[in-house]
């Protein structure tokens, strides 16, 4: 029994200090948090920067989610029968699931209001929705249900024509249910929304708004996107209107290189980390009141955003100037995914499993157990996982995190083959597992489009097929993959940059552009 207590205590302590920040979106998807569920958009909230992440890893206090966050907000309303753009403020007070609980509840408050001093004749929304979120965890998934207490749901909408619609909250209903799947590198989520709202105050009698839709989103260390596909049906005594609105909010981090103007400077330019935000919505009208016959059947609105940035580390890579992977390697050092003295990272040399996994863990910002605890507490005794991964090695905790997350496994004999060169198929497999996208490959995958498909190990076949489908890898000029060939440092850097680039932009397009641009 003593043993169990010890393990429980140990794991418990690990859990506390491995608690990811919001940056590690793996733990806390942003479902509806910065958009609400009414078809609107906000500027979103930027992901933590590199410096901020490091400060928080060193034990700084996390932001208090209970503090109100105020964001610019846009929403298109159709209660008058015509699309009218509302420009105002979204104020959020959001709780979050307890990371140590299997089930529980928390609340999220959304308040929408016009800007202070806004013209009273403009379209305006005053809305208060307090969501009670019930959640439970099953494996890697969190299942959430958002409900609104009618007693606290208030909504008043004024149209440009001067009509004021007031929500009959006692008759109105709302529910949202979300499924989140937390994979090592990305937290994916999908939700369904259903609402029935009754508005009074129109000469056309009670206006009934039926809303049904889906939410698609993901959060990673490099980007977060949430896109809604909401179908609305508005009916009153005189007309009916149906439309689909597809709002989308994305925040991501990209790198921009800044070269130096002075000649006599100790470093050769550096990357800046740029925090971008994209917010826009597109709508299509299907059934419209006849008086709207000459209005366009579709439209879009966006929200102007402002990029912020920070400087990143400038490594000395002069020894590899002109190397085709120079930029890839530079970027990884700048992001501190590769650390240490760059001259030890010789491009043409092979990379070991331990080195690659460490870089991968950093690339996807896997939460790792800290060596020293905040505020000088006693260090935690590490749990040895493999006989060849010495706990004194600096990579130890990254390997531990990689294995805990299921990204990689040990080899026979209780070893990790830590210091063995990693093969292409091993590296590709871990990348797909980090993305949590193995599932989209055919099971079983028995053949791939690569000419040397038969050389691919059975365990790697599916992930390699997925990587190919996602465009993360491609065959050489002869159609080969060379799955068993060891990869060099330079190739590893390229592969990791592809992964990060996919997380920054590729996956964003799948969740934003591809959904917003199509009507289903």
């Amino acid at each position, binding site marked *: 029994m003593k*043993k*169990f207590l010890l*393990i429980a205590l140990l*794991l*418990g302590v*690990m859990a506390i200090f491995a608690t990811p920040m919001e940056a590690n979106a793996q733990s806390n998807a942003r479902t509806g948090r910065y958009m609400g569920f009414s078809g609107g958009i906000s500027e979103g909230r930027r992901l933590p920067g590199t410096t901020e992440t490091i400060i928080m890893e060193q034990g700084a206090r996390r932001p208090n989610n209970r503090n109100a966050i105020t964001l610019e907000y846009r929403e298109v309303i159709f209660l008058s029968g015509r699309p009218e753009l509302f420009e105002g403020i979204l104020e959020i007070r959001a709780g979050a699931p307890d990371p*140590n609980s*299997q089930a529980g509840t928390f609340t999220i408050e959304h308040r929408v209001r016009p800007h202070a001093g806004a013209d009273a004749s403009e379209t305006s929304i005053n809305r208060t929705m307090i969501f009670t979120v019930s959640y439970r965890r099953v494996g890697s998934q969190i299942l959430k249900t958002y409900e609104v207490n009618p007693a606290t749901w208030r909504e008043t909408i004024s149209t440009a024509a001067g009509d004021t619609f007031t929500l009959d909250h006692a008759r109105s209903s709302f529910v949202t249910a979300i499924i989140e799947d937390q994979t090592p590198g990305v937290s994916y989520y999908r939700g369904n929304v259903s609402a029935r709202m009754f508005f009074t105050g129109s000469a056309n009698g009670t206006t009934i708004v039926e809303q049904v839709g889906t939410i698609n989103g993901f959060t990673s260390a490099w980007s977060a996107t949430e896109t809604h596909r909401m179908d609305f049906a508005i009916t009153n005594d005189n007309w009916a209107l149906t439309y*689909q609105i*597809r709002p*989308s909010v*994305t925040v991501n981090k990209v790198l*921009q290189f*800044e070269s130096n103007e002075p000649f006599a400077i100790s470093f050769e330019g550096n990357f800046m980390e*740029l925090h*971008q935000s*994209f*917010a*826009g919505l*597109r709508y*299509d009208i*299907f059934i419209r009141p006849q*008086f709207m*016959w*000459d209005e366009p059947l*579709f439209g*879009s609105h*966006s929200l102007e955003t402002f*990029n912020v*940035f920070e400087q990143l580390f400038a490594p000395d890579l002069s020894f590899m100037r002109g190397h085709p992977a120079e930029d890839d390697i530079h970027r990884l050092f700048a992001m501190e995914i590769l650390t240490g003295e760059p001259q030890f990272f010789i491009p043409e040399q092979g990379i070991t499993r331990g080195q690659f996994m460490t870089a991968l863990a950093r690339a996807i910002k896997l939460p790792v157990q800290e060596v020293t605890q905040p505020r000088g507490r006693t260090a935690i005794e590490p*749990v*040895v*996982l*493999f*006989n060849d991964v010495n706990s004194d090695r600096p990579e130890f905790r990254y390997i531990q995190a990689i294995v805990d997350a*299921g990204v990689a496994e*040990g080899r026979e*004999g*209780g*070893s990790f083959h830590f210091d063995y060169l990693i093969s292409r198929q091993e590296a590709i497999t871990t990348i797909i597992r980090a993305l949590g996208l193995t599932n989209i490959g*055919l099971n*079983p995958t*028995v*053949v791939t*489009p*690569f*000419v*040397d*498909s038969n050389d691919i190990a059975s365990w790697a076949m599916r992930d390699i097929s997925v990587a190919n*489908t996602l*465009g993360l890898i491609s065959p050489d000029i002869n159609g080969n993959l060379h799955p068993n060939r060891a990869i060099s440092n330079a190739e590893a850097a390229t592969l990791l940059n592809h992964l990060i680039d996919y997380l920054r932009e590729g996956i964003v*397009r*799948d969740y934003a*552009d*591809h959904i*917003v*641009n*199509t*009507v*289903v």
Partner: protein
Amino acid sequence: MMKKKFLTQAVSLALATIMLLPASVAVAQDELIHIDPVSNTYTGRPQAAQLITQLQFTDLPAGEGFREAIIRGGALEVIHPEAAQFRPNAPVSREEAIAFALRAAGRSDEARALGEAMADDLQGLPLNRVWNFGYMQLAQQIGMITADQFTSAQTVATTQPIDNDDEEAPVPPIAPVFDSTVSATRQEIASWLVGAFESVEDDIFDVPATAGVSLQSFTDWGTISPIHASAVETVLRHNIMNGQTPTNFAPNSTVPRQEMAQIISHLDGFHFELMGLERAMGAVIDTSNEQFIQTGASYAWRHIHVRRADGSVDHLQFTLPGTASPQGVPLDAVVFRNGEVVGLTALQTGDQIEYLVHPETGTVWYVRVTGTTSTANFRGRLQIINIENGTMTFTDNTNTAITFPMIEGMYGIGADGQPFIRFTNILRPASSLPRGTYYDVTLVGNLITDITFVGDPVVTPEIRGIVIDNNAMLGSLTILDENRQERSFNYIPGALMVQRREFFDMRDTIGGIHEMFPGNFNPRETSINAIIPGDLVVFRVDSEDPTRITAISSAENIIQRYGRILEFRDQGGFFDMLMEFENGQTAWFSVPNQVLVMDRGRPVNPNQIQMGDWARIIVNQAVLAPGVMMETVREISLDSGGHHISSIVMGRVAGFHHAQNLIQIEHAQELTPAGWSNHSPLASFNISGPNVRYYHDGRAVSLAHVQRYLQRSGATVYLAMENHHAGERAVVVSIRSGRDELIRAGTVLGASANEFHLLEIPGAIQTDAGTIVVRNGRLVEQNHISAPDWARVALNGHNTAAVVNIEPAPATSGVQIIRGRIDRVEPNQSFRVTAMSIFDGLRWNFAPIGREFAIDHDTLFIGENGVTNMTDFIGWGENSVIGDVFNVVVDGSRAVRVIDAPFTNPTPDLPPPAQGHLTVRGTIYAINGSTVHLRDMHVFNGRTAQWNIVSNTNATGTVTVQPNTIIVDRNQVVGTNGLQVGQQILALSSDNRLGVTLEPGITADVYILLVES
């Protein structure tokens, strides 16, 4: 210096020696040996090396039991080796027996101290005669022997002639003299053993005995001395000694030394208690070496990881200091392995061992290799997982329950407080493992090191794989199975149950197994023809013919792709489509017309696809063999506008706002029907898109190039702006050094790869990679200009097109407007006109025949105040429309618009001087609400069919668009907001032309307005 060098060499040699010893690989079946925490680490002892040397007896008995007992006694320093021979058959002397007893009781240090205290008195006597004095004195002090016996023994030892001192011929005892060198009797030994142990702990033998016999069971019990009877009874009950035969105890017989060793080993339990020793069992799973090297103080270690019988891990450590100082002895333990006395380094992976450790000092004293660790596999039904005890209980085929302990890493309590089992190398909740079903269990030394799920017997064999060929004509299906083997099967199409799940099917089929619910409707039931390469299939085969499929179910393998349609060619029945995906790769697809093309959520004809459209396509992917892939388009969803070109901008590069991803344009103007318009002195445009293309004079360049060399160049820049949902953003930034010249829009007469001819424009117009070519709002390639496109072209430089904007040619003839008098109304269904006039530009052609037009929900009824309700269009009551005249926009026999508006007839029906209704033509230069301001205004004279300019100096006027005005632009009826500055319009009013004076400022309410260009 010499000394230091010597030390280094010595250390190196020592390390080299240890490293030559084989370090084995781990036992594969216990992969967690290094993952589980080490419960205890035990190091060797300094005295072990000497013991190992001393215990190399050359005369050990053959019996394993005797040999082991002797070596164990030696390792624990109960038996002190005195020579190379153990003399196993020599009887134990009294002094030896007493010494063994005291050492076993842990009192050897006291005895040695007493002996040393007497050393001065014993000078001159050989050590082999007086070594026992300390033991004898201690024995006397604690009552094992009497004072007389001690004195007597001392006297014998000190008075006997030294020359006669021969162990082979001991001097016979002379009563009552107590000669310690004579052989001890069995009852004496019993007595001394009990005495020695009880001297340390009074009630040590009071623990209930579990075996053994009573002395009264021996026939010679009466010969036992009353002095020893109690002790004999004790040793018998505790199985320390037995009878010499089953019936005789033989109390006065002597005991050979080898038997004495065994008697001592029977005392282990009591001995260990007194010595603070513990006995453990386990298996050597892994050995590894480690060394630490520094000049003068180096170490080499052999680490031996032992899986204990309870599943935990012990670590035994041999240390070889690499120093030459006297303290630099190895820390080792006596190991008895295969009948040989060796050290810890001789332990091998797979050795099953029993070992004695001293927890207080963290040392290992003795290791006995009892055999080889057995590895076994067991298949059983899992019944119980007991996390607290660390055991799993299975039942075998005879339903016998068998419980095995697990190795430590197999189980535990997770951070969530839930028990877990390590299963297929992943920690899973213990509750998730199905009970009552079969598992393969790997046992290493009876410990579970791994389990594998087996499940229950297969009752309906199924085969699973990927289809690479299906030939329904031949009844043949070829698959690649899970083991990558190509396998062919046959079937009889008519006798086959087939199901297929399409990619869009809802995943809620219940009762999918046909033979269980044959009457149920299953939407997935289909014919074998539906199964195509790439499908994932699961099928059953005939029990008598394993190559014949009897039922098959499949799901298609689809992936999603997104990209731009570069080429589209209607081939009649199918179309070819070249797509460029977001990663720049391209692929041709041949798509049958049956494939659904969706636009804004509705299925549309494939010929609605336009080059430059973006689309999300669903593709069925089949990899038929390595390197051979076939993709079949299953669905096309056209992009609803996110990639459409929303504007084309021209200006001068003014700079970049790098961090905000903006390009700043001086004198920015937008291409409109009125030419370059909407001037802005300085405007910023977003360039944050992922694939912005930059060109300089038709040559592709990088953003860096533009930033460094062109941003202050004053060159003209053209931007193609995309309608991204998060705001407009540039997709093409084309910078040119020439002067911009917008030429009038016209029809393309002919085109080749990089030039085209425009009607009324002399010479060929060149295009290059930097030419922005937009067709119907889609960005297309330069070779997509073709006759008879209607294009608006901006030139830059000598006949080089910077922008080619292709749009539908202005035309209004596609919209049919009639005017008729209502004869009959069928509410919500149709109406009839008695006769009608058909609008034909500037005249109405009368058709004296009645005609019926259908009404549907899309028919708009418009009055002077705008849209009216369909229900007001009735043929009875005060508001009856019978006899009223309406303008009607018709589409075949369907009424699209029914408009109550005045008659507008440019051509007079009346005799001169009538000139018809006021009809004007002009170019829009401003729009204020419904008031449209025109320049170049002309007025039509219906009598002369001439257009008269309003004024030669200020030919302006306004027309007012009414709610019931029909506006036609490019063959579409549009609203007021469809009008744009720059358009040339023809507007018809109902005012009498005769009452209008040609002067600036003519106004008119118009009811038909045609956009001409």
